[in-house]
């Protein structure tokens, strides 16, 4: 799978899709895209359903995004689906941050949660 970051706006919610693998080498770009989204969108959904790998550098970006969204009253949710890579599920479980992050089991669920 080709790595990439896509952003689209759905009913005022920015949906940021991370495709493929993301680590320290892309964390800065992911963070920048999130910052741009939170400047203008009423909510942010981050879709990890097509993400095959993340490391703790990306996990930190996701946690910071959730904290920032909460501070400014924007909706926020992350889609962690069955199709997300083993490494995505594993990192969230090992760190215990699956309980701290606002996650949904599908892209549609994350968009709905970010809009509410």
């Amino acid at each position, binding site marked *: 799978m080709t790595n990439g970051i896509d952003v689209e706006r759905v009913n005022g919610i920015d949906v940021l899709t991370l495709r493929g693998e993301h680590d320290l080498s892309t964390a800065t770009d992911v963070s920048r895209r999130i910052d741009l989204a939170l400047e203008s969108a009423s909510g942010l959904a981050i879709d990890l359903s097509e993400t095959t790998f993340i490391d*703790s550098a990306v996990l930190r970006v996701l946690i910071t995004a959730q904290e920032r969204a909460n501070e400014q009253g924007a909706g926020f949710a992350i889609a962690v689906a069955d199709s997300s890579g083993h490494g995505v599920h594993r990192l969230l479980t090992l760190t215990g941050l699956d309980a701290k992050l606002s996650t949904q089991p599908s892209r549609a669920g994350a968009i709905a949660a970010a809009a509410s």
Partner: protein
Amino acid sequence: METVSERVEIEIAATAAGVPLVRHALRGLLTGLEVPDDVIADIALAVTEACTNAVVHAYPSGGGTIHITASHLDGELDVAVRDHGGGMSPRMDTPGLGVGLPVIAAIARSVAIGSPDGGGTEVRMQFALRTAVG
């Protein structure tokens, strides 16, 4: 029992761009050894965290290299990630969560951090290849 050994050595510039290169090389080695996908994913995560630690902490002023050695023998993989920098000094602007080493410890059969002759830091990890890890 047949003894099978493989050894891969990689040297990368201590930059973020080098981290996925190490992960991809390790996956290639492990796929060739027919290691289960979930075990490969775990090892890829642990080694990525070790490389990220080296990139972030070893050379605060930039530059430098990281040397990775992966040795396979009889169903175990020994991975050493060595830098020649100033050690794992804390950074206020660290891009991580401070969970890298705990993640490595949870996945690896054993992990040791040393200061080898010649300076720098070496993180040595041992993984079981044929059974569930962690």
